[in-house]
């Protein structure tokens, strides 16, 4: 139930620093000053086309706050790909170095720990509250748009819904929308009601006025519970795709569902999920645990009407979920373990992970990822677009671990005529099917009658190199382009 949506959400870490006076009429300001801290982080991105090179380096300001157990909660995007993290408290000039202890890029939350435990001298942890009611007042605290002093703004809760988190791009979780000003630098700051944290400010909508979003407490609590065992497992996924066609009476009758029964109709299941091969097309999901599913695929939970995904969102990986469903007019139940979302082609953006590559004779191969697609920019080639649009509904060979693309050609005499293949999907190298990057260099060990032949999906011509010349020039090309190693992929035998 993960979808790729083009919402223009903006992450609100301040990049540009300008002086803006802080709000003066903040409630309990002196108390908040003990809990809310400024985070300055320097990050360095990865280069997804030529992964041995470093990407851009940038510094930004965000906000964090102290929670129980001497921990600092903030947004993952404040510290993603971070190299250096510095904390500042409101009332002292002293700077503290911190490190990331836990991070979930999926729900944009991170826990930081200062190197010096003296940091917590004089701090007060904030308590996590509940979900604020729509139209109730909340205060947002943080360090927006520069300035050394804490800023507090007030607004009302506009609505609570599921929405795409712009940091991972493709993951949806619960959000609370507010009209309190949330600006760059507010990221990671607490949203307060009745002295308790009801959310973490994290993104805004650029196309509308006064639309800011915070991460609500069900998501925060899920993260805090998730890390109790010392690891981040993130959120589970139902593993099935549904359609809201029970609005059509004829369809209801066709699948022999009682006329008064609501639910969502299964159209497909995802490979690597607990329901793959168990749930079938035209099964009707009528309840998830105790929550009844309506014809819009929604449930009543936390006193609100939310997408049924929320019933799985609140569970930890490894917990059980019970689906009630109808098949051929019979009600059935099934209890399965909640598993993480593991699609073959993930549209979630990755952070803190070095991209993989292989290089042979100037041909650079990498695995297809969200980051790669963002790096090449523009419209992807037809084959990539096809894969992105239809990957959920295509049954891939179970041997496939990932998709491999030719990301660049480091120009040399040996590969002079290889233009036109960049950004295409590699199918075979020297007759060997490529299921993962680890297969690439192995496939170059044996030539085909003196040639290296790379075949691409949907291309009517292979890329052909003279095997001997390619072997001879392989190292020289690496030297010419300062490539430290031919691969960073560990090959298992």
């Amino acid at each position, binding site marked *: 139930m993960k979808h790729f949506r083009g919402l223009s959400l903006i992450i609100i870490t301040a990049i540009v620093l300008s002086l803006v006076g802080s709000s003066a009429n903040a409630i309990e300001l002196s108390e908040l000053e003990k809990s809310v801290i400024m985070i300055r982080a320097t990050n360095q991105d990865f280069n997804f086309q030529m992964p041995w090179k470093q990407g851009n380096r940038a510094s930004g300001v965000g906000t964090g706050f102290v929670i129980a157990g001497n921990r600092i909660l903030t947004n993952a995007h404040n510290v993603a790909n971070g190299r250096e993290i510095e904390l500042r408290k409101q009332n002292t000039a002293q700077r503290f170095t911190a490190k990331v202890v836990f991070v979930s890029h999926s729900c944009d939350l991170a826990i930081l720990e200062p190197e010096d435990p003296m940091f917590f001298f004089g701090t007060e942890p904030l308590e996590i509250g509940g979900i604020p009611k729509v139209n109730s007042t909340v205060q947002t605290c943080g360090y927006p748009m520069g300035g050394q002093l804490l800023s507090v703004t007030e607004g009302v809760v506009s609505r609570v819904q599921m929405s795409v988190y712009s940091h991972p791009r493709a993951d949806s979780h619960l959000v609370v929308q507010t009209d309190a000003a949330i600006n760059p630098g507010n990221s990671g700051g607490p949203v307060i009601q009745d002295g308790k944290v009801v959310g973490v400010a994290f993104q805004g909508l650029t196309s509308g006025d006064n639309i800011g979003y915070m991460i609500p407490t069900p998501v925060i609590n899920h993260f805090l519970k998730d890390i109790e065992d010392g690891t981040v497992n993130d959120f589970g996924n139902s593993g099935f*795709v549904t*359609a*809201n*066609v*029970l*609005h*059509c*009476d*004829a*369809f209801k*009758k*066709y699948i022999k569902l009682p006329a008064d029964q609501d639910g969502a*109709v299964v*159209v*497909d299941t995802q490979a690597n999920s607990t329901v793959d091969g168990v749930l079938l*097309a*035209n099964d009707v999901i009528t309840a998830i645990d105790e929550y009844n599913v309506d*014809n819009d695929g929604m449930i009543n939970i936390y006193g609100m009407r939310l997408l049924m995904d929320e019933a799985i969102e609140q569970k930890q990986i490894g917990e059980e979920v019970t689906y009630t469903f109808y098949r051929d007019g019979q009600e059935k139940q099934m209890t399965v373990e909640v598993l993480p979302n593991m699609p073959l082609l993930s549209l979630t953006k990755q952070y803190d992970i070095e991209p993989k590559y292989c290089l042979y004779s100037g041909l650079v191969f990498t695995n297809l990822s969200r980051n790669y697609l963002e790096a090449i920019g523009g*419209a992807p080639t*037809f084959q990539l*677009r*096809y894969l*992105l*649009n*239809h990957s*959920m*509904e295509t049954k891939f060979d179970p041997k496939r671990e990932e998709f491999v693309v030719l990301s660049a050609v480091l120009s040399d005499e040996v590969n*002079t*005529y290889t233009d036109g293949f960049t950004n295409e999907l590699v199918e075979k190298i020297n007759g060997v099917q490529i299921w993962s990057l680890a297969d690439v260099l192995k496939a170059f060990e044996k030539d085909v009658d003196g*040639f290296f*032949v790379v075949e691409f999906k*949907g291309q*009517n*011509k292979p890329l*052909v*190199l*003279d095997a001997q*010349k390619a072997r001879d020039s392989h190292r020289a090309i690496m030297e010419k382009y300062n490539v430290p190693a031919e691969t960073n992929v560990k090959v298992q035998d």
Partner: protein
Amino acid sequence: MRNINKYGLALLAVCMLTLSACQPVAKIENASVDLSDKFKVSMAYVEVTTYPWETFQSWKQGDPGTSGGYGIAVAKDEIIYPANKVIDATDIKVKPFGQDDFVKASVKITDYESNLALLKLETEKMAQPMVPVEFYDIYKKGAEVEFFKLKSNGVVDSGRAFIDDHQVSGISISYTRHLYFKLANVSQALSSGEIITLDGKPIGMGSWSSGSNSGGIVVAKVINHFLEDNKDGVYKGFPTPAFSTTRLIDPTMRRYLGVPAEIKNGCYVTNVNPIGTGADVLKKGDVILAIDGKELDAYGRYMDPIFKEMSYYPLITDKQIGDNIKFEIYRDGKKMELDVTAANFKVEEMLIDYYTYGKQPEYIITNGFVFHKLTRPYVTAQGAGRALPRIEGYLNDESYKATKDRQDIVVLTFTIPLPTNRGYQNYSQLVVKNVNGTKISNIAQMDQLLAENKEEFHVIQFEGNYPDLVIPVAQAKEIDTMYLPKMYGIKQMKNIEKSKVN
């Protein structure tokens, strides 16, 4: 070899004609005589009203439009005219030189590939017979040409330009390529149908304008092929290559394909469609060394005695349907000669019809669901990049590949919202796979399956992750016959070409 001789003779004949006509023309030019007088008896002003069908709401027609142009007489009551100007024509009026009243005309032949149409005038309304123009196959790069047209007010107008270059190219209405001359410094924009003359001789017909002052003309060779073809009353059209090629300049790739080092020429066959010239003989991966005895270079060009380097297309399009064309190729490391029969195809033979000119799109509406036969205009009308990759994939890769089991791709286009189709109203661009349990080959079969169904529901299944579409048959009948006609004025619930029913 027989064909080369024929071609050679034709060229020779043209040369002789040129020589014999040389003297008087020179005199005329010296005396600055206006050639308008010579050609006016062959000119006509043409007015065409078109009324195209809408692509998606295919039960309706768009706004009628009228455009003017210029025809050139090729018989006493026949003119040639650009084919793109008569697409979806409902009314054609022609005013030949020397009369003020219009004469009704009808389309006799259209060849969208060469952008030529032959229009027949109602003879009895004509004040006098027109004088046919003879087209001369001559080309001089950089030479000045003069062009003439008969304006709507009966006055002959002329303009000048230079022959900038020749080009073998496809125009937007066509799926193949032809030889055109490109004109530069055009004194007044070519619109269509002007007589283009070089040294006082007609060499082509104005076809298009591009940019501020350049334009293109359909050349004599193509016009004469078109006219010659029709002489026996059966128009067959130009042969069309079934294959596409790409350059083969990489020495490693050449060796990999088994081409010996001493052979430096030949281009690479990237794709062979099942219809057209070479469909049954050429294979993807072949290296074409020569066509009809003319050696192709690594870019697929041959050395033409007049035009110098030129794409191989004319080596095929110049032939007549059924002619034998010798191909010399490399395949699997062996040089071989292939006998290829010059062939073309009708656009209806394609899986995704390249165009639907003059035809109402094929569609079925039931229960508010609008299904269409997928065509290229259907995809292009969505706008660039708007079609789903699945649809785009059919267009890119399968367009020519109709089989008995798959003659059409049928697509759910949109849904007219009704209480009986709730839940489905957001679906569009879905490719129909099965109708009532049967895999469909074409839209006519889908229509038949819907008509024959005795069950309570129609069940339509799509390619990809979509729910079955369930249509209550009895309610749908009421909607189709009562509600949609009354509320939306839709009178025609389907348009199916009967020819394809299995």
